């Protein structure tokens, strides 16, 4: 076990997979020497050189499309889009093209393309660099969405992703970049669609993913002091979604709080809430409560950002409102 940051955990997983599979290449801006803006590919440039760690122009659409064309031939490109917000410049390529090729070719072609991007709010990043668009991607048939919350998951999920053939969006919250955690030295793969129960409890189920997992755990700590014990589920991937773990827990606790950093209105929490009430209606003692951001862009000034982004106390209050 080594203690690695979230970013380093990505580099580790990628390095091992690139050593294993010569068809993996990574493309993005400022990755060869700098190793990416979040250190996510640090050291890979030295290890694999400029034919496999490729600095690119600022051309998000061109790169996603290029990645797709290369993937159709059997290459395994990772396109690093830096901030998730920049993915908006490549939506036609992602949604109309990448997502649809397996289906339109009736399985004769596949697009083993991985898109990495850093999502979520960070102090000062502001409206155009702070979005959480994972729900849109999860709702797109043909795409997979990975939203890890720990360094070990980053490595383990990345390895899985690079050994399967569907296009995957790998979203790493930018405020997690520097967090550290143990990452196994061995080759551990984590299957897609398998949520992790991060804390066991009986009174309420808190469902989160990515950065909000740690907020949920902190909330659970506070709640424990007040005698409320929470099951905390970290989804790890949104597509495929581990419905069973969620529903099983809620059937036991009879109460659920769904948490994400995207605005509540229209966010993926709506899906989770719906599934819970569809599949565990008779078990619910209270409405499922959603905790998400207010319906605003994310402002630059820190104190304003904090006024719109959900925090630990929002989760605590949400739980208390139904317990």
């Amino acid at each position, binding site marked *: 076990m080594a203690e690695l940051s979230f970013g380093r955990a990505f580099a580790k997983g990628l390095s091992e997979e690139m050593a294993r599979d010569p068809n993996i290449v990574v493309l993005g801006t400022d990755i060869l020497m700098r190793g990416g803006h979040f250190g996510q590919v640090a050291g890979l440039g030295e290890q694999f050189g400029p034919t496999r760690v490729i600095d690119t122009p600022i051309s998000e659409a061109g790169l996603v499309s*290029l990645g797709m064309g290369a993937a159709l031939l059997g290459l395994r490109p990772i396109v690093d889009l830096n901030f998730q917000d920049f993915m908006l410049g490549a939506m036609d*390529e992602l949604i109309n093209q990448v997502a649809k090729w*397996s289906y339109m*070719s009736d*399985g004769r072609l596949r697009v083993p393309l991985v898109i990495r991007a850093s999502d979520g709010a960070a102090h000062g990043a502001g409206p155009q660099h702070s979005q959480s668009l994972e729900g849109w991607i999860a709702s797109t048939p043909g795409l997979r969405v990975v939203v890890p919350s720990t360094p070990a998951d980053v490595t383990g999920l990345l390895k899985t992703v690079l050994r399967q053939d569907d296009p995957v969006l790998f979203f790493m919250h930018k405020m997690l970049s520097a967090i550290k955690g143990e990452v196994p030295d061995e080759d551990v793969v984590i299957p897609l669609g398998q949520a992790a129960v991060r804390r066991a409890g009986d009174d309420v189920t808190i469902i989160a993913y990515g950065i909000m997992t740690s907020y949920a755990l902190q909330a659970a700590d506070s709640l424990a002091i007040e005698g409320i014990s929470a099951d905390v589920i970290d989804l790890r991937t949104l597509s495929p979604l581990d419905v069973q773990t969620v529903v099983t827990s809620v059937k036991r606790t009879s109460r659920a709080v769904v948490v994400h950093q995207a605005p509540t209105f229209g966010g993926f929490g709506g899906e989770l809430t719906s599934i819970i009430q569809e599949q565990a209606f008779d078990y619910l003692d209270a409405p499922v409560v959603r905790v998400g951001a207010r319906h605003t862009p994310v402002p630059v000034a820190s104190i304003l950002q904090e006024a719109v982004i959900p925090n630990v106390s929002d989760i605590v209050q949400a739980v208390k409102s139904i317990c």
Partner: protein
Amino acid sequence: MDYDRRHVVESMLQQMLFIRLFEESVEQDALQGMVQGGVHLSIGQEAVAVGVHHALQSQDYVTGGHRGHHICLARGMDPRIMMAELMGKATGLSRGKSGSMHLIDPDHGILGLNGIVAASIGIATGAAFAVKYWQRSDQVVVGFFGDGAGNKGLFNESLNLAGLWNLPVIYVCENNQYAVETHVRQSTAGGDLSHRAEGYGFPGITVDGMDPLAVWEAVTQARTRAVNGEGPTLIEAQTYRYRGHDVGDPQTYRTKDEIADWRERDPIEYLTQMAMANEWLDGNTITALRESMQREVDAARRFALESPDPELGVALQYVYSQGGTGWQN
């Protein structure tokens, strides 16, 4: 050389004739509502696809846009399963899921037609990236697109990447003068689109797209450049669609005279004259050729018509590569 030329001309003529007859058949069926979805015929543009094909090797790849039946047939797609796909049948290439605009046939290097204008440009660029990465020394990718696609952003992003990295890709713009109703001069600033290649440091040329031999020559040169590591080429082929944008287009935006002028340069007519003038083919042979092609088209059509509809479950297959719709684990 003369023998080669004769061989090429005969082969081109045969392909062009077949495409024309195939498309005329599709047109009739489309008018009868037998074809699923919008149909964009390539009648008039046969010389481009056929000229390109003759300059390519079997290992080369192509991508195309919404108007690409001619590309598929030139590259060797089986007309029966193609026709079946157009009619949404179980025997079709994608068992009815993709249809006319999204024909895909990896067995013939057809990475896909595309319903989105300009998307073919980027995908071709990516395939060329893989070819170069693997240092495959005798393989290139052709990205077909229409005159309307030159003003999409992806054109800029992809051509820059290809120029920057010297990718073995040939961009073939089929300038058929119109994007739906809009004449190319009303959509495109700066004259010939081929000029834009200069901005990316590689050659762009305009060729007569009604002359398959001219296309063939231009693509042959471009292919040589590409496999020699000299990078991409943009070829703008001036051509014309005799039919409307899609079957059903009222075509109020152009004159009968304009159509007649272009038809004077019909590529099938042109090669027929050439073959007859050189005494490579005579009237009887050509009639016989046409008849055998027509039989093949009819057979494809019959095959499609007689094929069963797909099982409904097909609609739920291959959203993901493992086969299912799989949003849930």
